[in-house]
């Protein structure tokens, strides 16, 4: 008997009587899905937030707050050669500007998928990350987020909440472990 069949047989023999799945109703409580609630949590995670009218304001804001950026990739730009290059070559990207799908006020997380970001490693390998999210896409909790996201459409998706961090050395919080050292969220109108 293969290990597969052996394991499955043992599981079948030993598993307890099946119980029903609980309802997920009422788990969100009265969490607010507001911009203010989102901003507070994001800033607590070490991220920053700018409210803008539209994406045309982004270059000026980046130039102001990140004056030393050399290589910037903006997903959606006409310069798209990077998509077909070896992803290892993204190592020198200083700033990646990527679109988010949904934001979650309770924990600051934003859902991104490879539908919008064709190279999976981009939001991780860049030194700094900017996510653009329309204001109308903020939700209170993870329950609403999974409701909106629904069934998977892509091979990879990720919730990102704040910059990469670690506290492995004596519980001292340090931003910038392996992923982006900072995160800025641009909330666009509408």
């Amino acid at each position, binding site marked *: 008997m293969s*290990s597969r069949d052996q394991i499955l047989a043992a599981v079948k023999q030993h598993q307890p009587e099946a119980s029903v799945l609980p309802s997920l109703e009422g788990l969100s409580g009265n969490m607010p899905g507001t911009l203010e609630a989102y901003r507070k949590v994001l800033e607590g995670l070490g991220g920053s937030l700018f409210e803008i009218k539209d994406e045309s304001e982004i270059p000026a804001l980046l130039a102001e707050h990140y004056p030393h950026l050399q290589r910037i990739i903006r997903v959606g730009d006409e310069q798209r050669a990077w998509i077909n290059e070896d992803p290892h070559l993204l190592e020198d990207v200083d700033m990646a500007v990527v679109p988010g799908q949904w934001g979650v006020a309770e924990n*600051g997380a934003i859902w991104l998928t490879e539908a919008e970001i064709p190279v999976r490693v981009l939001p991780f390998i860049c030194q700094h990350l900017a996510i653009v999210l329309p204001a109308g896409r903020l939700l209170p909790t993870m329950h609403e987020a999974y409701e909106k996201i629904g069934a998977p459409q892509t091979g990879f998706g990720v919730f990102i909440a704040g910059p990469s961090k670690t506290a492995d*050395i004596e519980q001292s919080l340090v931003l910038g472990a392996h992923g982006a050292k900072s995160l800025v969220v641009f909330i666009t109108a509408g």
Partner: protein
Amino acid sequence: MNRQTADHATLADKFNEDEPRVDWHDQTLWWVRAKRDKMAWSIPEWEQLRETASAIKLNALGNLHDYLVQFEQQAIQNGAIVHWAADAEEHNQIVTGILKKHGVHHLVKSKSMLTEECHLNPHLMANGIEVIDTDLGERIVQLAKEPPSHIVLPCIHKKKEEIGELFHEHLGTPAGNADPQFLTAAARQHLRKEFLQAKAAITGVNFAVAETGEMVVCTNEGNADMGAHLADVHIACMGIEKIIPQRKHLGVFLRLLARSATGQPITTYSSHFRQPRPGQELHIVLVDNGRSRQLGREDFRNSLKCIRCGACMNTCPVYRRSGGHSYHTAVAGPIGAILAPNLDMKDYADLPFASTLCGSCSNVCPVKIDIHQQLYKWRQVLVKEGYTTAAKTAGMKAMSGVLSTPAVYRTAGKMGRWVMRAFPGMVNNRLNPWYKQREMPAPPKQSFSQWYEKNKKS
């Protein structure tokens, strides 16, 4: 497998030789526990979330056979290659086989307690394959040639000065620099090189969704993603109990996991791996290694609900003062003490006794595992099966004789109080383990029953 022979009490004694360090360890973990409380209290429906998570896991265990088959089907449809390993050895062989097929001699690994449980690293080394742990804490203990002492905070037992020395020796940082910010930056540079060179990446799995065949991996550092998205081969290793039924259930678990673990609202990255990226190979190794046996132990099967948050360790008065290494198993602390005897009753017979049964672990567990009750039940199983030391068994038998016969109990109490008064040296000596680190209390003049007889109002 290189198992330690010393038991928990002996190893804890060793840890306790350095009292200021024990205090520091204790306080650091309690601080993490306090952060968890603050987060939990900020969510009014917290208890309902715990109940729901526990019920989802119970459903998963009750349908585990079907969910595993469903997960496998979905994963294959997604383009993954699924392997099944009955035990640690088979797991290690499968992983080594994949790496050898691709000619990989050097790879990166993100945190996976399963690979610790299976002792994968020594196995790979013996096969001439170098594995670099990429979680900062795990890299630190790897450089120190130690196992992790905590499942979430692998080097929580290490002082920054010791880490500075390790980095000076291995990464060439200036001697004497122990600044966490500086050391983290040095590790970032060092590990970026590893990520860029690695042809293969191993990750653990936090949750595997039967409905979609996808796996969710949670990190704060981004190391799982840096590894998996750059490598040609991604190997995800998971215990069969990581299965959850549906995607929407992730909402419940992701709300609980990081809040319980470190008091964060969520980890920085919650990555959903479903399909390999074009040109990449994705392998999933499903490991039993005793889990199907634990599933059959009615008293202990709830331990398989564990989501590895570590909250039970942070709150445990014994763990905080004895250190993770004193448990001599991959998963330390209260949860480890109920998982380990299932793997080997003889080797881990000491662990269920490394507890005061105070119940704090059960109170913080996000999936409501009755941890302290299982510790108590394991003790009975282990004594019955003859895996406890002769002294403990004799002591238990004598105690049981005394406690089950009221007359004997009364006489023993009287004798005890008399001995403590007349010959204090009989109890205040090194042979009495209760005398260690504390004075014995003054013996009371009368027993509680005597006091009650005298004072009761009829």
